[in-house]
């Protein structure tokens, strides 16, 4: 298989889940697309360094997560606001996803979780990675991954179940 064929295969296989992971981190479509593209650009540039090709999936998710952290650290494109303070500017969903408001609601709740829970929980719900792989991607011990997932689920559960169903949903259209 040529490098280009491998690249195309990886894109077909993972671009969708990488985008979902990126969206859960970045909270908007534009930055999620940007992160996903940047991840594959990094693969084209540096993927050849990976000796064990079976770890390509973990490599891609690790790279995306690190790219996100790097951007966040530099505060270039991901300024941290309390979501309640910027409700009018909440992520706009493209026409293609307008009919998935429930998904947006779940993502909105994920975005409101404590930051330490967001990435582990997003990877948990993608169901594409074992706990060990999640630990590798996030660079934290296995026990910490399990603990953060449990605590994150608890917090998400509380968040979603305490919502008053009559409260109009904001910022999702």
């Amino acid at each position: 298989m040529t490098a280009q064929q491998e690249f195309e295969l990886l894109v077909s296989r993972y671009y969708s889940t990488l985008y979902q992971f990126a969206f859960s981190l970045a909270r908007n479509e534009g930055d999620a697309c940007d992160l996903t593209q940047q991840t594959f650009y990094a693969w084209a540039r540096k993927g050849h360094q990976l000796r064990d090709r079976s770890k390509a999936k973990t490599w891609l998710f690790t790279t995306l997560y690190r790219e996100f952290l790097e951007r966040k650290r530099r505060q270039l494109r991901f300024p941290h606001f309390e979501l309640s303070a910027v409700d009018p500017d909440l992520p706009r969903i493209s026409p293609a996803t307008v009919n998935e408001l429930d998904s947006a609601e779940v993502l909105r709740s994920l975005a409101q979780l404590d930051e330490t829970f967001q990435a582990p929980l997003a990877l948990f719900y993608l169901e594409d990675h074992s706990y060990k792989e999640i630990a590798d991607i996030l660079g934290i011990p296995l026990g910490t991954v399990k603990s953060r997932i449990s605590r994150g689920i608890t917090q998400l559960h509380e968040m979603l179940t305490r919502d008053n169903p009559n409260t109009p949903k904001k910022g999702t259209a």
Partner: protein
Amino acid sequence: MNSRQAREILMRYRPGVADDSDPELAQALEQAARDPELGRWFEHHRAFQNAVRDRFTQLSPPAGLKDKILAQYRPAEVVVWWQRPDFRTLAAAAAAAIVLLVGLAVFRDRPREDQSFLAFRNRIVRNAQRGYAMDITTTNLDEIRRYLAAHEASADYVLPGPLQQLPGDGGAVVRWQNRKVSMVCFDSGNHNDLYLFVARRSDLPDAPAAPEPEFSRIGKLTTASWSTGDKVYVLAGKGDEQFLRRYLR
């Protein structure tokens, strides 16, 4: 295992995913089957989990993203110089070996290859610039250290504080003059890698003896070299002396 512990384990249950072979999980599932109250809670929790997972994974990438990604593909220019010999490398190595044998026969009394620290530093840093392969790719610095130890390269190195805070990129065992040198790559951010080479001091008697770094420029990389204990360290990265100093305090 009490009911509370079982709940905590069951909370993370994902049927059909690789981790469901966890023995603790099997035990918790058995307990849920025996304990009606725990069973009811588990059923409710699974319904919640399914709903969240389904909503989460319904999110579709915008149309055109895949095409954009595919269109940006440009093959990397790779010059891998060790551990991946292709036919041309082998042919070149064979030719070099013949030349070497002839050379040895003719110039038997000529001085040996330069084994100085300067030659060492020049060689490893230039090779890092030309392209390299990592034996292990991970962000986990402990994992890199374990890999190096398992392959009998220097693994008891001491990292300066700021380097300990960086995520790893990977590591490799590099050979120089038939001796093993540890290479640890760090991601300093913005796609700028830092390379740390660790060699045994006894292999490089003329290396800088002090723990204070000496700086030098090799090609596009700046290097800092120092010694502590029985190790010689060379840190290389794209940037000036001030840039490297940030990782050595």
